[in-house]
């Protein structure tokens, strides 16, 4: 009995230590705001203010509140200072401040070493490192093309001069330029695909880049005006491998696309995950300890129950580590 | 010390009916004991329980003071009423098998007995006749220097000449400090070798027990005649 208790205690301590160690690798670091939002420091890293312009953060869902230290000047000026960082984008964060009049504003900060590249991206919208094609079904799913693949696309098949209004019959979706870290995206083009293709791996796909187009091509909201008659350069996609991949992406509906009650399913799914990966293994460990106690850990129950406890612990550790890391 | 002791032994199978009910007895060492009774009275069940093949429903069984388990299996040599060897094995492989697992196994004695019976040690068990198979089994069991020999119906289903041989082998090869328990319903063949007997009744009750010579002197009857009297239908 004593052996069983000692073993379970040891395993729980090991479990807690592993979980803490794993979760601690995605640390809730303390950030220090210097002056009146002049810069933000985190250890050796300096974040400078960054104007996102019309760009946006690619993985905005992974935002989390982080600990922030402010100096007296900021403390006097603002009633609330909240700093948010992204679990998946470690060079970007934003601060939401509320002044003493209740006015709120958001200031983005970017790591100093990423500033130049991202500022150029926001200013020009030009593709330097790669681009993402948005799914025509959801706003959360993208197809990534690096600059080399894009270069092959643009240099094979030959560009075509066509009027934008000729493409009204085509389905269209947005193309975003991304920075090298993949965290910031800005609209840089429109992709047109033939509707109802006979062969989804060999269909007509055209890329139109917005840089170089005059304001007359865009409506008052900044979107491409598909009724505009002006001619622009379209790049047809003729490279076989890329055509197959892009065609497949654009024509594949995601499983969860517009299923009613999806939130309920996702909620149930989470509960199921916790049941299977935490509750059930804990139950297994309890049963193993009880059997060990009843049999006084004699062979083979002692060894077998130990194996069961270790197995259950692995399930719990694996699940917690997965949740923390992804 | 008694070589075998049963205390309040109960055994039932899935039907719930007790085959052995509240059996308590002890068997001294150095005796040949006959466990006698009609078919289905629990003789084999008792033997198997002592051999460790069955788990008692209630009660305790001790061999040489040790509860029946892994340790007692090295003290007990058991011969079941059926062929229980792997038929693809050769006779010499079986001898090696016994020598491997039983520290008290006398390999030379086994080979001598096999030689005496002109049994080819290279022969596969499946090629031997039923009677020869049973002789091989008996030789292997009796070649052990066990504390307790349990022989379940050793002479059933064999011809009279073979029965005589088997009984002769039993008597000539067992260690006088050991005990042999023989179950059988062929009492007339067996009674001349028995020192003691137990008559079992249905439900595993001991109907009568004692020394064979004593009961013959007292009643003036053979054990066989006494059996017929006790179990008269």
């Amino acid at each position: 009995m004593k052996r069983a208790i000692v073993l379970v205690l040891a395993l729980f301590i090991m479990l807690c230590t592993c979980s803490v160690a794993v979760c601690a690798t995605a640390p809730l670091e303390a950030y220090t705001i210097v002056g009146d939002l002049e810069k933000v420091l985190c250890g050796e890293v300096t974040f400078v203010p960054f104007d996102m312009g019309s760009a946006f953060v690619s993985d905005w869902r992974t935002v989390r509140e982080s600990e922030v230290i402010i100096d007296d000047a900021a403390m006097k000026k603002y009633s609330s200072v909240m700093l948010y960082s992204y679990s998946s984008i470690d060079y970007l964060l934003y601060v939401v401040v509320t002044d003493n009049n209740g006015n709120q504003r958001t200031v983005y900060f970017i790591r100093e070493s990423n500033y130049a590249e991202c500022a150029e991206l926001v200013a020009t919208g030009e593709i330097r490192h790669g681009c993402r094609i948005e799914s025509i079904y959801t706003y959360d799913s993208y197809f990534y093309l690096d600059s080399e693949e894009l270069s092959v696309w643009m240099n094979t098949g030959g560009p075509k001069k066509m009027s934008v209004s000729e493409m009204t019959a085509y389905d269209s979706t947005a193309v975003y330029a991304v920075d090298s870290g993949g965290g910031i995206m800005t609209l840089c083009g429109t992709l047109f695909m033939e509707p109802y293709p006979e062969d989804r791996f060999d269909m007509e796909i055209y890329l139109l880049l917005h840089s170089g187009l005059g304001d007359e091509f865009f409506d008052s909201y900044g979107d491409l005006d598909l009724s505009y008659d002006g001619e622009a350069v379209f790049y047809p996609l003729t490279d076989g491998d890329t055509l197959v991949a892009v065609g497949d992406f654009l024509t594949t509906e995601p499983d969860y696309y517009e299923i009613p009650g999806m939130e309920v399913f996702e909620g149930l799914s989470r509960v199921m995950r916790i049941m299977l990966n935490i509750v059930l293994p804990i139950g297994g460990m309890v049963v193993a300890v009880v059997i060990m106690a009843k049999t006084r850990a004699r062979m083979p129950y002692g060894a077998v129950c130990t194996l069961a406890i270790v197995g259950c612990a692995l399930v719990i550790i694996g699940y917690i580590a997965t949740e923390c890391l992804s | 010390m008694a070589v075998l002791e049963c205390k309040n032994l109960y055994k039932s199978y899935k039907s719930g009916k007790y085959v052995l009910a509240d059996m308590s007895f002890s068997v001294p060492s150095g005796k040949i004991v006959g466990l006698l009774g009609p078919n289905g009275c629990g003789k084999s069940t008792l033997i198997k329980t002592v051999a460790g093949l069955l788990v008692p429903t209630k009660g305790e069984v001790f061999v040489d003071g040790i509860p029946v388990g892994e340790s007692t299996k090295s003290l007990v040599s058991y011969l079941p009423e059926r062929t229980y060897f792997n038929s693809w094995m050769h006779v010499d492989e079986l001898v090696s098998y016994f020598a491997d697992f039983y520290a008290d196994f006398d390999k030379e004695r086994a080979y001598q007995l096999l030689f005496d019976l002109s049994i080819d040690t290279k022969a596969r068990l499946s090629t031997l006749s039923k009677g020869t198979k049973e002789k091989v089994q008996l030789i292997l069991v009796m070649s052990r220097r066990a504390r307790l020999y349990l022989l379940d119906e050793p002479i059933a289903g064999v011809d009279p000449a073979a029965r005589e041989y088997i009984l002769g082998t039993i008597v000539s090869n067992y260690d006088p400090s050991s005990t042999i328990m023989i179950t059988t319903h062929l009492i007339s063949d067996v009674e001349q070798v028995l020192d003691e007997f137990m008559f079992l009744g249905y439900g595993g009750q001991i109907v009568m027990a004692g020394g064979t010579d004593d009961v013959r002197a007292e009643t003036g009857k053979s054990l066989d005649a006494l059996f017929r009297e006790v179990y008269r239908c």
Partner: protein
Amino acid sequence: MLGKLLKYDMKAVFKYWWLAALTTVLLSVIAGVLLSYVIEEDAARGVLEEAIAIVGLVISFIGIFVLPLVTEVLIIVRLYKHFFTDEGYLTFTLPVKKHALLNSKLIMAMAFQLAAVVTVVMDVIIILFVGMLCDRIKGIDNFSSDYGEPLFGELSADAWGFGILYTAEAILIGLAYMFVLSMVIFLCLTIASVLTKKHKVLVAIGLFYGANAISSLFTQIAVYGTDLNGVFMIFDSVNNGVSELALKWSVAAQLLIPLGALAAVGAGMYALEYYLLDRKLDLQ
């Protein structure tokens, strides 16, 4: 004593297993020759010849991939005869611990299952090798470019850099799976022998199918109901901006889940099996 038990168990199964394994090796040589013949382009041959070659190829492949099934049958026969028939009188009167008897069967089962997998993999390599050899003799090189290089290219690529860790985890998961599979088979036979006197094998087969159905249902719920995002995100990491290193560790962590689950389930089954053998099995 465990060593001695294992020696006899391995011998009993190997007596027949080696023949089955050797047959698959011969079949793989035949398959290699036939495959080289079948994939040769522009070769002038009749419809009947081609049909015979294809049928021969199919039979060879079936013969090779049926080895794991044959192995399971041999393991089952050994366990059944040794525990649940008249041979059980000898087995359970040996002066060995009951868990040593069980461990011997388990180790034997896992060893032969592993041997079957290794043999099948070896057979596939022999097929490719013989095919390439036939190509060389014919002075063509269809085979290696169509099949050999892509396959070996895939095997030698280390796309993730976590290859060793994933391989180790995969091996452990494979061993755990064999452990659980063996225990399922043992349990079905033991429960059938405890429950019935007659038709033990039929009852065991029924129990096995039942266990399969339950485990399939459970796996469906576990996999589809819990939405294993991480495994699929690894192929789409840059698109969603998650750090690649974190995802690689995430996959390694996720592999702990089936490993732990299999170990725990296998251990539970072992405990139940031992309990049944020790307390509930009455050989009659």
